[in-house]
């Protein structure tokens, strides 16, 4: 449990605004607001260094637009860093891979496939159809969707969809789960339920390293072993705290409520608490 799973090594990500570089033949290339379009570079992440150990549950907090999703996408291999590298088990991430699965903020179940078919997609390595079916059923049961296997995503509630999303992600048996605000579209009660389920999964899958982006500070406090707060762009790690309190946690504990005020302070919120 002590070796480094993920090493984020001096990662810098720059987005080029205006998208494609200026076309050489463009008539309007030297116009008022196009002149510098090619040079408008925004540094979103700036020299980020983070080490994450196997089985850690890390929450990432920060203001909207600070680059949390970008950080996760770099780890997933969707975005290549401008400088620096992400190493997983000592190997540089160059492309997306099923051993580090991304759970999207917007919900990414294929709407044209049933829940079971969606989950089966992540079970590609299982060749035997019987076994595949059993495995799919296992993951469905794990998230409490055993009765919805042949329904389409639009037939499910938001919370069920998010559960199916998580089931698909863990069915790929990833070493790393990259969860980008997985519960942000849900109501408060559903979020509380899913929080509990996340804890259950975390216990079930002790070897799975989880990175969990959230805006909900209580969610982070309740779930994670480590908290990372990012500054505004060009973002750096502003604060990194380990939480040792055992699960299940009582958020009114002195340690946790102290930490909460600390987080609020770092996020620049002075009126809350």
């Amino acid at each position, binding site marked *: 449990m002590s070796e480094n799973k993920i090493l984020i090594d001096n990662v810098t990500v720059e987005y080029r605004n205006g998208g494609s570089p200026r076309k050489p033949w463009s008539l309007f290339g030297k116009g008022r607001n196009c002149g510098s379009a090619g040079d408008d570079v925004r540094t979103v992440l700036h020299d980020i260094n983070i080490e994450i150990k196997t089985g850690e549950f890390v929450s990432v907090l920060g203001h909207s637009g600070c680059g949390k999703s970008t950080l996760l996408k770099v780890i*997933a291999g*969707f975005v290549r860093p401008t400088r620096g590298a992400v190493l997983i088990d000592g190997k540089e991430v160059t*492309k*997306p*891979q*099923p051993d580090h*699965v*991304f759970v*999207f903020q*917007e919900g*990414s179940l*294929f*709407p*044209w*496939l049933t829940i079971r078919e969606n989950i089966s*997609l*992540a079970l*590609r390595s299982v060749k035997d159809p019987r076994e595949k079916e059993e495995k799919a059923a296992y993951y469905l049961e794990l998230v409490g969707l055993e009765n919805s296997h042949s329904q*389409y*995503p*639009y*037939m499910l509630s938001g919370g069920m969809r998010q559960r199916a999303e998580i089931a698909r992600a863990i069915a*790929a048996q990833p070493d790393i789960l990259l969860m980008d605000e997985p519960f942000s579209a849900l109501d408060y009660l559903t979020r509380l339920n899913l929080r509990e389920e996340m804890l259950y999964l975390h216990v079930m899958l002790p070897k799975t390293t989880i990175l969990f982006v959230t805006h909900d500070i209580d969610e982070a406090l309740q779930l994670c072993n480590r908290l990372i707060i990012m500054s505004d762009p060009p973002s750096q790690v502003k604060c990194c705290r380990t939480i040792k309190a055992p699960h299940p946690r009582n958020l009114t504990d002195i340690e946790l409520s102290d930490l909460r005020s600390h987080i609020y302070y770092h996020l620049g919120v002075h009126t809350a608490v």
Partner: protein
Amino acid sequence: MLNVLWDGGSNFPGIAQFGKAFIELATNGDLWRHSIASLFRVTLGFYLAILLAVPLGLFLGRRQGWRKWMDPVVQFLRPISPLAWTPFAMAWFGIGDAPALFIIFLAAFFPILISTTEAAASIHPMYFLVASNLQLTSWESLCKIIVPATAPNILLALRVSLGVAWLVVVAAEMIAVKSGLGYLIIDSRNALRLDYVMVAMTTIGMIGLALDHTIARLGRLEAVRWRLERK
């Protein structure tokens, strides 16, 4: 007034005469023969168009580089009425079914191609990120993402283009062939049988209605339901 409708006039047949002509054409088999000839041409031309336009559209939709070059070509060819190709169709394919099929094919091809390209190009990129994350092969991406994601739009395009194809078949048959409802119209006009013309027109309308009804049912398939129900 009713009298006029029933008896007709010098330049339009009355209901009585129309009914008689209808029964006549239906019982001597001409109506069925011509209808089947037209339906055969529409079906064949339509299938040919689907066979070519759908794969090409999916390809162009997923290849922005190709699309950039092909789009002007398509948009240039599209506004040219299929009927304008008639002289070339006859020069290339002679007389008979082939030129008519070519014209029907053209009529159906562009609506399907354009809708398919558009649909394939606008699939949410997130789905392809998921595919790359789960390492789906290109074949799996085609079967599990591209085809099902575009199916609703393609079906809609099929409905539109089948209507257009049926619209064009009559015109195509007026030129090159000796069968079909279009030929029946031209032939009857030459024989000054406006009542036959009207029977042919009515039949065209009814078959068009039936075709549309049939293809609209495809829109209720399970595979495309998600599109309607999506929040």
